[in-house]
């Protein structure tokens, strides 16, 4: 089982809807490639919707962090939406919960992009 990511635009914000598992192997690399493609096309406002991501391992977290760094280094923003309790716990254990901006509401999330 891997991850499936579909992308949609809400104004000038690219929302990535992910479902499945972001783990070492296909899942993590799929995520990395989707993000890379969006950034290469000039998308600087990225919102990752993790409502249907049931599972992330440390490699998946690594890809989230790597994506965040890539986007930020290009003066863009990557934010997170709809974390499950398990993913939220992981981000807290790894002290990344305060690094990312996290939202429970898509409208508020989209509005937050400058």
């Amino acid at each position, binding site marked *: 089982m891997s991850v499936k990511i579909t992308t949609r635009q809400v104004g000038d914000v690219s929302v990535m809807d992910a479902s499945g598992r972001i*783990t070492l192997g296909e899942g993590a690399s799929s995520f990395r490639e989707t993000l890379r493609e969006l950034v290469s096309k000039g998308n600087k406002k990225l919102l990752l919707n993790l409502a249907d991501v049931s599972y992330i*391992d*440390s490699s998946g977290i*690594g890809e989230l*962090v790597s994506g965040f*760094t890539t986007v930020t280094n290009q003066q863009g923003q990557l934010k997170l939406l709809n974390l499950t309790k398990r993913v939220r716990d992981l981000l807290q254990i790894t*002290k990344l919960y305060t690094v990312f901006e996290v939202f429970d509401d898509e409208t508020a999330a989209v509005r937050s992009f400058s």
Partner: protein
Amino acid sequence: MQPRVSGMSEGKNDRNGNLETLLESTLDSVDAAEALVLKAASDVGFTEDDLHEIGMAVREAMVNAVVHGNRYNFNKKVHLNVAKQPDQLQVRITDEGAGFDQSHVPNPLEEENLLRQSGRGLLLIQAFVDEFEMHHVPPLGTEVKMVKYRKPS
């Protein structure tokens, strides 16, 4: 009779249902180990949340063994031992690599390391199990021992 699981080369259960098996150094083995350990953990009677944590810890330890310990070397195996007791599960995962010095892993919780792409596996394992030990066990490589207690309901 041991079911054939992708990534598993041989294995046996002893009288107590404790499992000892050898796994290939592939990512399939990570899935295989998780499935085997979760089966044992279900037998012990862990909660859903505990099963999730056990699965995560096992996956992280297996990835370390396959990727870092054995470096996907076809000639090196990962040794998996699972021991069930009424109130706990013990899992040992041993690679055949060169051994590992944990002090060489930057602490992922330190400010300057928060945005590193890798290095969080051991942190997660320790967050999810009750006991954690790691040793170099020549002639094999690194052994990770994890114990999770079943809380009384």
